[in-house]
C-alpha cells in the first residue's frame, strides 16, 4: 500500500501536522524535491493526500474525505451493518403485517 514505503510514511506524517508545500516537506526530510513530488503523487493517487494551489505553490494536506483505509473500512462496515438491519427490519415488518405475530 501507499504507506508501506518509509519515506512516503514520513511525508504523510509531516502532512498530518499541517498543510505543506514540496519545499516545506524537503526542509524537514533528507529527500530531494523531485523525489518528494513523486511520493506525493503516489499518496494523492491513493486518496490519502490532496493538493490546492496557493499562489505559485501547491499546498499538500491529508485528504479530509479520505483518511485512507480506515475511513474506507468504516464505510464498508456500516454499509454491511445497515443492510443487515434492513433485512431484519423488513422481514419483521412483513411478519407483523401477517396474522397474529407475538411480540418478542
Amino acid at each position, binding site marked *: *500500500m501507499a504507506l508501506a514505503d518509509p519515506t512516503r510514511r514520513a511525508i504523510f506524517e509531516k502532512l498530518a501536522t499541517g498543510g505543506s508545500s514540496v519545499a516545506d516537506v524537503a526542509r524537514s526530510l533528507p529527500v530531494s524535491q523531485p523525489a518528494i513530488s513523486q511520493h506525493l503523487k503516489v499518496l494523492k493517487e491513493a486518496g490519502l493526500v490532496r493538493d490546492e494551489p496557493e499562489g505559485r505553490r501547491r499546498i499538500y494536506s491529508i485528504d*479530509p474525505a*479520505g*483518511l485512507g483505509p480506515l475511513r474506507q473500512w468504516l464505510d464498508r462496515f456500516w454499509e454491511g451493518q445497515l443492510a443487515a*438491519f434492513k433485512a431484519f*427490519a*423488513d422481514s419483521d415488518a412483513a411478519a407483523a403485517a401477517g396474522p397474529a405475530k407475538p411480540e418478542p
Partner: protein
Amino acid sequence: MHRIEPAPVVKSVTVSASPARAFEIFASGMGDWWLKTHSLTTSGQKTVVVEPRAGGRWYEIGTAGEEKEWGRVLAYEPPHRILFAWQLNADWDFDPQFQTEVEVTFEAIADGGTTVRLEHRDLANYGAKAEEARGSLDTEGGWAGLLQAFAAKAG
C-alpha cells in the same frame, strides 16, 4: 497544530417499519441483526446490549458470557434519534479515553416506512490517537501501523 477533519461516514437505508418499530429493532434488538462476524468476543457473539438511557452502556455478550464494551449511549430519544459514543480505537480495543460519535436518526416517510440515517463522526480522533501513540510504537508505528492494522482487519 492543524487538525485533520475527515468527512464523517454517512449511510442511510429505508425500511418498511414505522420509526418507533425501526428504533426498537435498531436499539433493543441490535443483537438480532448485528453481523456476528464483527465481534470482539472470543467465544462468539451471543447478543448486543444497548442500555436504553443516556449514560447507558453499549456492549456485547459472548456465548461464554463474557462482556466486551463498545462504548456508551449519549442520547436515547425514541423514536427519533440515538447517539452512541463509539470507543473502539483503530486496534479494536475499548479505550475509555477514545471517543467517536455514531448518531442514528429515524425519519418517517410517506408510505409508513422509515429512513434510517447513520453518521459516524469525529473520525479525526483516530488521527489524534495516532499522533499520541506514535512515540510508543515501533518502526511499524504511527499512522501506517494503525492504518495497516485496519487494512488487515478489513482483509
